[in-house]
């Protein structure tokens, strides 16, 4: 009879310096991907898809589905095993590094440390008409159980809505003596969001306003790192709720002496 072995000692562990995707066996590198090609479906198209996946670094790339989707396009689903690995142990990602406060704590913080109402403007700028994100942060009823900034007694929140030109946002910031601007960008086609976000920073600097404002970007493709590169103070991705944004804004104001 075998001695009783603790199964936990037999389980494979990931190599954090050589991290690969996991399907069902440690280090198998299993990747699922799908794309379309601008050629009709057929044996040549399938081979083209397979070669592309191989060039992406997938070993044993296999086309598991292909079909004609009209107008000379073909659609593919593929699996393969990623040969590349990354050094997870040495990855450092900038994060918004402030204490996260709840609704009550944010209002108390403003009363104690700022002593006046904080003015926050939110807008979807440029041609972007997707207000779901900014509404979730700004609107009274909020989202997923968290009130929006309009509900905060110590915050004067103005939701300017969608398709607000950068120049208009700057004009409103001056008029309302804004402490913080929240800029939402959802549409990313041809990197329109990057140009738009950068343009706002240029305008604010030209007006000498940049240093007096907390400038925040948000949207499904926005990361904190990207926002910093574009000259913003913080960036928030999908799933962010109002208290996170409010916590950052009020603490950043105090840190920079804008209170």
């Amino acid at each position, binding site marked *: 009879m*075998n001695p009783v072995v603790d*199964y936990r000692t*037999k*389980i494979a562990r990931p190599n954090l310096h050589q991290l690969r995707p996991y399907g*069902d066996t440690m280090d198998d590198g299993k990747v699922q991907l799908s794309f379309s090609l601008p050629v009709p479906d057929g044996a040549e198209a399938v081979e083209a898809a397979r070669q592309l996946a191989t060039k992406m670094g997938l070993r044993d790339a296999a086309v598991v589905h292909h*079909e004609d989707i009209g107008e000379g396009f073909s659609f593919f689903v593929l699996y393969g095993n990623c040969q590349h690995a990354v050094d997870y142990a040495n990855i450092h990602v900038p994060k918004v590094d402030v204490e996260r406060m709840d609704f009550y704590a944010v209002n108390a913080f403003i009363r104690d440390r700022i002593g006046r109402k904080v003015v926050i403007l939110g807008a979807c700028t440029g041609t972007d008409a997707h207000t779901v994100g900014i509404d979730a942060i700004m609107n009274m009823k909020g989202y997923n159980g968290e009130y929006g900034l309009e509900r905060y007694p110590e915050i004067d929140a103005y939701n300017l809505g969608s398709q607000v030109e950068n120049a208009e946002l700057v004009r409103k910031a001056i008029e309302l003596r804004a402490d913080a601007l929240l800029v939402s960008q959802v549409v990313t086609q041809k990197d329109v969001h990057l140009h738009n976000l950068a343009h706002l920073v240029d305008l604010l600097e030209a007006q000498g306003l940049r240093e007096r404002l907390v400038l925040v970007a948000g949207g499904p493709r926005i990361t904190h790192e990207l926002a910093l590169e574009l000259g913003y103070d913080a960036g928030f991705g999908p799933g962010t709720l109002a208290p996170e944004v409010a916590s950052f804004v009020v603490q950043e104001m105090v840190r920079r002496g804008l209170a």
Partner: protein
Amino acid sequence: MASKLYLDPQLVARGRAAAGQIADDMDAFIRQRTTIAVERTALRLFGVDGVDADGVPLPNRVADQVHEAGGLAGGVARWWVNGRLQTGLGPQELAEAVGDGMVTLTELPLAPEEEIRRAGRRWAEEALDRIRGNRRDRDHRIARLGEGPQPYLYVIVATGNIYEDVVQAKAAARQGADIIAVIRSTGQSLLDYVPYGATTEGFGGTYATQENFRIMRAALDEVGEEVGRYIRLCNYCSGLCMPEIAAMGAMERLDVMLNDALYGILFRDINPERTLVDQAFSRMLNSFAGVIINTGEDNYLTTADAVEAAHTVLASQFINEQFALRAGLPEEQMGLGHAFEMNPMLEDGFLYELAQAQMVREIFPKAPIKYMPPTKHMTGNIFRGHVQDALFNLVGVATQQGIQLLGMMTEQIHTPLVHDRHLAIESARYIFNNARHLGDELTFKPDGIIVRRAQTVLQEAVALLERIVDIGFFEALAKGLFADVKRSRQGGRGRAGVVLRDPDYFNPFEERLRVELGLSGQEVRA
């Protein structure tokens, strides 16, 4: 409960009576026979385990020795118990001595019959006590931790390596699974022995071994404590070692077992006599251990068209129910199977699926019906597959199925990856929660497509069952009445392991189980 499908109770009763007739005829046949697998099961329950120097399991060595000497007709138990009395060896030592050729059980002097029977019954009782203990343990854990609502979320793990399986299984439990099934390695059902020890290499699945059962049980108990929900463990009690795996599962507290009266015959070409005898003893053990069995009617629909063959599923469910009752298995442990396998391009196919699922629910009201996902018409298009699975889940919750085997969008591509299972569970939880009481709200048009479909399937199933009664069960198998597969009574694998019992046949486990399960007499059931 009034039938929403206006099913005729007289017709349902006729179907049940015909299936009962088939099972009664076979029950007499079964009681006269034993198999090499049934005898190995008795040895396992007596504590025989392990392998010899060549890797042959000791239960096989002992049973084969007795079989080759022509001693199986009286039951291996007599030889085994006598061997222990004569040699004074413990179970493991005696099994090893037989394996080494040091002891030939059939050549030892025989103790008086009464003495053998007394000792055999005492040792049998010890093994059955362990199973009783496991059953109590399960009940306590469920009472303390609770369990998910039905339909239970059932997912499979199949990495081939038990130590990867436990990782996948624990992840699935955290994702929300209620039942984890460890798919067996391809071809295990045709092995006439059970592999031994922890295994790390399988093909399309992981070998069912007692050690693998023990490892997975420990892992699921552990994660069950953390998630605050009892997580059930399922394996496959089918193939040539059906009763042995039932015994191993009973000893290691498995909760669910695939266990079909006909599956091995039809889909693995196992000899019909062998399967019928094996399934009866397996089901006694499963019943006693509190194990929910799952029958394999979904397989009918992967070989035949799901619309045309729908009635064969219902007929088989009736037969499985009656066989199970004759093995003492209560309805609450009968996870009768069926499947959502119609071609998705069929107009109103969803209505037919809904009709059939509701029909099964109504005809077997106490059974935790096991509902299988689309597999045959899954393509590599994972996105469409995910939608097919969503419709399947909607039918499952609307018709209050007992066990929902979750479909994987990657069906037909690979055994599930960790995220395939996550996405399947996420989708099922969303749909089950979002439509939890949909079934309570639904009624169907008396002359509508759904009602007419269910009534047609029931009529066809009853006609098929009555035809099987007329021509005889073995003849029906030979004619291909089930799943278009023809199986002769003498054909298939494992027939050499079927033995006619002597009048003094002794199997203290079966003897005790028949008493405990109320199977002593030849009672007739409605």
